């Protein structure tokens, strides 16, 4: 994607690009290098001596059953949030794409939740599901359903998944709707004239045409579930009860900030960095190739 570059000289562009470069160096490259360095060291409990330990932090991490649990838990969490959020969003987008009265109003009412902060979403869900004060939580307990996500692991996971997926529906809705609208009407009409009924038409014509959007959203949702949900989980369960909702990012926070275990936390950060870069690279390669078709 080149263009015939037009302007000569190098002082001006250098000046223009400098701010971003400086920020990149100081707030990305330097911290990333430090994280990699820290992940290869270990500090004594008093913070006096730091020694180079090579890949020991990493081998310790991956042989630690708690860390492996955390990976598994995060994977389950990411899958559940992505599927739930994208599923609901796709359903709503399909119906919002139809020619009905008040279409614009429905869309606005489904788009505004994009503005909700993940931590605030947690607050809203507390008002619904908290065992002592939540609208539904109180109702459940009153009807002899033992509901307390501060005590029950499965309930805690359910709550954080629900709140996280709920918050993301809006974003997915916007993209699915745009994707649906970019499908040429002629294609749908042709399918309809061939006798393809609603669901069959969706499955064989519409959904495949949505594949780029779906893939893009899948990656974005997974990154969202892995990182942006920190506020939601902290506000709802703080990673508890015990470790029931401790995803990888919560663990980085707990180990690094709360327990001051910099070596392990840095190693975990490096693992996460590798994960994100891989996902992003996959996404660019797949979508780039598609665009070229």
């Amino acid at each position, binding site marked *: *994607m080149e*263009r015939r*570059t*037009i*302007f*000569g*000289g*190098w002082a001006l562009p*250098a000046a*223009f*690009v400098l*701010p*971003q470069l400086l*920020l*990149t160096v100081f*707030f*990305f*490259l330097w*911290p*990333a290098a430090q*994280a990699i360095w820290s992940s290869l060291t270990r500090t004594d409990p008093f913070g006096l001596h730091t020694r180079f330990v090579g890949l020991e932090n990493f081998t310790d991490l991956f042989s630690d059953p708690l860390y492996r649990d955390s990976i598994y838990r995060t994977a389950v969490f990411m899958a559940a949030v992505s599927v739930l959020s994208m599923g609901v969003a796709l359903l*709503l987008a399909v*119906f*919002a794409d139809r020619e*009905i009265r008040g279409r614009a109003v*429905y869309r*606005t*009412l489904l788009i*505004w*939740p994009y*503005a*909700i*902060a993940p*931590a*605030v979403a947690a*607050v*809203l869900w*507390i*008002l*619904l599901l908290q065992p*002592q*004060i939540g*609208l539904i939580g*109180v109702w459940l307990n009153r009807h002899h359903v033992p509901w307390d996500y501060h005590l029950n692991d499965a309930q805690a996971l359910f709550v954080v998944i629900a709140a996280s997926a*709920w918050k993301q*529906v809006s974003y997915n809705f916007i*993209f699915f709707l*745009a994707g649906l609208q970019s499908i040429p009407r002629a294609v749908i009409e042709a399918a309809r004239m061939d006798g393809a009924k609603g669901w069959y038409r969706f499955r064989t014509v519409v959904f495949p045409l949505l594949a780029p959007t779906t893939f893009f959203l899948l990656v974005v949702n997974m990154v969202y579930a892995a990182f*942006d949900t*920190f*506020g939601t989980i902290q506000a709802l369960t703080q990673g508890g009860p015990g470790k029931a909702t401790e995803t990888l990012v919560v663990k980085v*926070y707990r180990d690094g*900030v709360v327990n001051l275990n910099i070596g392990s936390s*840095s190693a975990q*950060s490096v693992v996460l*960095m590798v994960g*994100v*870069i891989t996902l*992003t690279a996959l*996404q660019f390669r797949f979508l780039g190739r598609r665009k070229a078709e």
Partner: protein
Amino acid sequence: MTQGTDWPTHVILCLGVLLFAMPLWLVFAGSTQDPAAIARGELSLLPHLDGFGIYSRVLSGKVSNMLLVSLGMALAIAIGKIAISILSAYAVAFFRFPFRQTAFWLIFITLMLPVEVRIIPTYQVMSDFGLINSFTGLTVPLIASATATLLFRQVFIAIPDELVEAARMDGAGPLRFLRDIVLPVSSANIAALFVILFVYGWNQYLWPLLVATDPSLDTIVVGIVKMIGVETQTEWNAVMATAVLALLPPVVVVIAMQRWFVAGLTEGEK
């Protein structure tokens, strides 16, 4: 082709709308209720019309300050990032200078490395610069990523060469070209990015939590979670009123600029 109303569609869409409107209504209604009653489990969907005093009480406390911090942060991030990205993208798209490719790839690497992945080392860097507990420390690390730069570069590259040639023949230098042609052409993207970045900056939680230990630098989102604290002792109506206040600015921005926002978000679909 007119038919009767498509009921199934309306039902499904209404359910969808309710899924989001209901918690919003609940937090609004709950903010006006008596905290003791809420603690007893009597939260209801009906607002108490005499309970609006909670808002003036909450606003006369530290919540006002928190709103200002959040506003400052959101605006700084949105405007800062847009400005820096436009300049970078302009340089990379319209000039040929030594190390241009290197610069571009360096910037490209930062794509999608969310702040949560680099919190601890970034914190250490901020500490070394003495920027902990400062407004700069709060905002600058969040301006650094490259998503906007990539977007602008794509827009700039798509500007037809004829336009650039015409401007050149009129004797326009790079600065005038930027101001008179490139910026207006990108105005829709700028508007969309403003919404996205404002919401992003306003809704931050982990980074402000770490960087600002001084309570006067708490953002409203951090503040709300702190207010919850020990759940059995929380003053729920105050928390809810604060939540409503925390929701208002970003929601207003999104709804007011909805058209640009949706267009900008989905146009550069990667």
